[in-house]
């Protein structure tokens, strides 16, 4: 097996350059690459274009990189509640491209599948369709959408091994396996780095071929955005 392990987050992100395009896994604060985000802040790389479904909150997730003004552009489906985000957007410091969530997910997947373009009905007849080619298949209108092109994909998995195989847990899976397939360089941080051979080959979500670097993350906070409980 090919050994993809690196020592830590700082080593994993060391060649991420100013003005790079990054994919960052996670939905809300669930399944986000906490360690790599911290390392990117320590590194101070700037001018980033971030493809991520959401933009974190003011004091966690990608929100932390917004505070340090490292992000030039967000490509997201929902940017939620984030005061600093709103301030930068209104002041023109930050650019935002909003994309339907299914289209965002599929554009990642298609990059990993080597399919340059595909058709989806999402956004037909809306401003999302501006400048886009439409086409009718069997009486229904579709937009042509393109695979993303990202310099780096940064994902967070539950378990992984040195060969780069990844397993996700619960809804922390979300965009992570899609982005893992889509980066020119894919960096995976995992809660548990297990021995090669320990993962059941039937249960691997991301085969190691898609992963270039893997490391065991530390001190996961796994913050909850909406803690909803029932009494009992």
């Amino acid at each position, binding site marked *: 097996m090919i050994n993809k392990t690196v020592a830590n987050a700082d080593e994993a992100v060391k060649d991420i350059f100013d003005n790079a395009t990054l994919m960052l896994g996670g*939905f809300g604060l669930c399944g986000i690459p906490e360690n790599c985000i911290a390392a990117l802040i320590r590194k101070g790389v700037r001018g980033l274009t971030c493809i991520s479904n959401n933009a974190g909150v003011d004091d966690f997730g990608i929100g932390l990189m917004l505070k340090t003004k490292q992000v030039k552009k967000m490509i997201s489906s929902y940017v939620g509640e984030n005061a600093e985000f709103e301030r930068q957007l209104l002041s023109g410091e930050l650019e935002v491209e909003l994309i339907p969530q299914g289209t965002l997910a599929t554009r990642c997947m298609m990059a990993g599948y080597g399919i340059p373009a595909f058709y989806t009905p999402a956004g037909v007849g809306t401003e999302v369709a501006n400048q886009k080619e439409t086409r009718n298949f069997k009486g229904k209108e579709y937009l042509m959408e393109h695979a993303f092109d990202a310099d780096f994909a940064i994902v967070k998995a539950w378990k992984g091994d040195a060969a780069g195989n990844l397993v996700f847990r619960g*809804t922390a899976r979300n965009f992570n396996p899609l982005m893992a397939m889509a980066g020119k360089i894919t960096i995976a941080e995992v809660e548990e780095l297990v021995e090669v051979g320990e993962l059941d080959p039937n249960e691997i979500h991301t085969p190691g071929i898609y992963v270039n670097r893997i490391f065991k993350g530390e001190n996961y906070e*796994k913050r909850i955005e909406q803690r909803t*409980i029932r009494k009992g």
Partner: protein
Amino acid sequence: MALTKEQIAQRIARELQNGFYVNLGIGIPTLVANYIPQGMNVVLQSENGLLGMGPFPYENEVDADIINAGKQTITTLPGTSFFDSAMSFGMIRSQRIDLTVLGAMEVSENGDIANWKIPGKMVKGMGGAMDLVASAKNIVVAMMQTNPKGESKLLPACTLPLTGQKCIKKVCTELGYYEIKDGAFHLIELAPGVTVNEIKAKTAGKLVVPDGVREMTF
């Protein structure tokens, strides 16, 4: 008397059938889950990547890795499956979801919907709404009939940027239940005690009131 939010949800829940896969949006739509009839098998899909959503967790069950599309902590049920967001929207686009319930800012008489953007205000994004409305075969909108200014949200044409075109089949407001067809809102049922005149006053789009329209009962 106008319906409460719970009653809107309760009325929409009557659309449920045994064996339905259902996607519920944030807000009133979420409440529909509380009115699934006992013994009826309905499976809830959450578009972040979950089929078979259970109720909110007890305090000691909270799991940061298990949330719904509203980013709320939830639980699983026997038979639950997790998957990535591309497969999730694959299910949606390939019309495996039998019923989709969404909130809206405006609905037009030809079934257009606007629910994601108000020009001049901070835009948070469409999330999965555009995928859902473009794909779902059976969409019910749950909303108030008028906006805070008292203006009808059932319009001849949407004034806000669209989320989707000609896609909404039914609307339930606090005043009535409407089917959208042939370019008009067809009143199917009235909220208890609400008059047709009040409906007419608060429907800007083309309205069809059939003879002997029924009143809802709860």
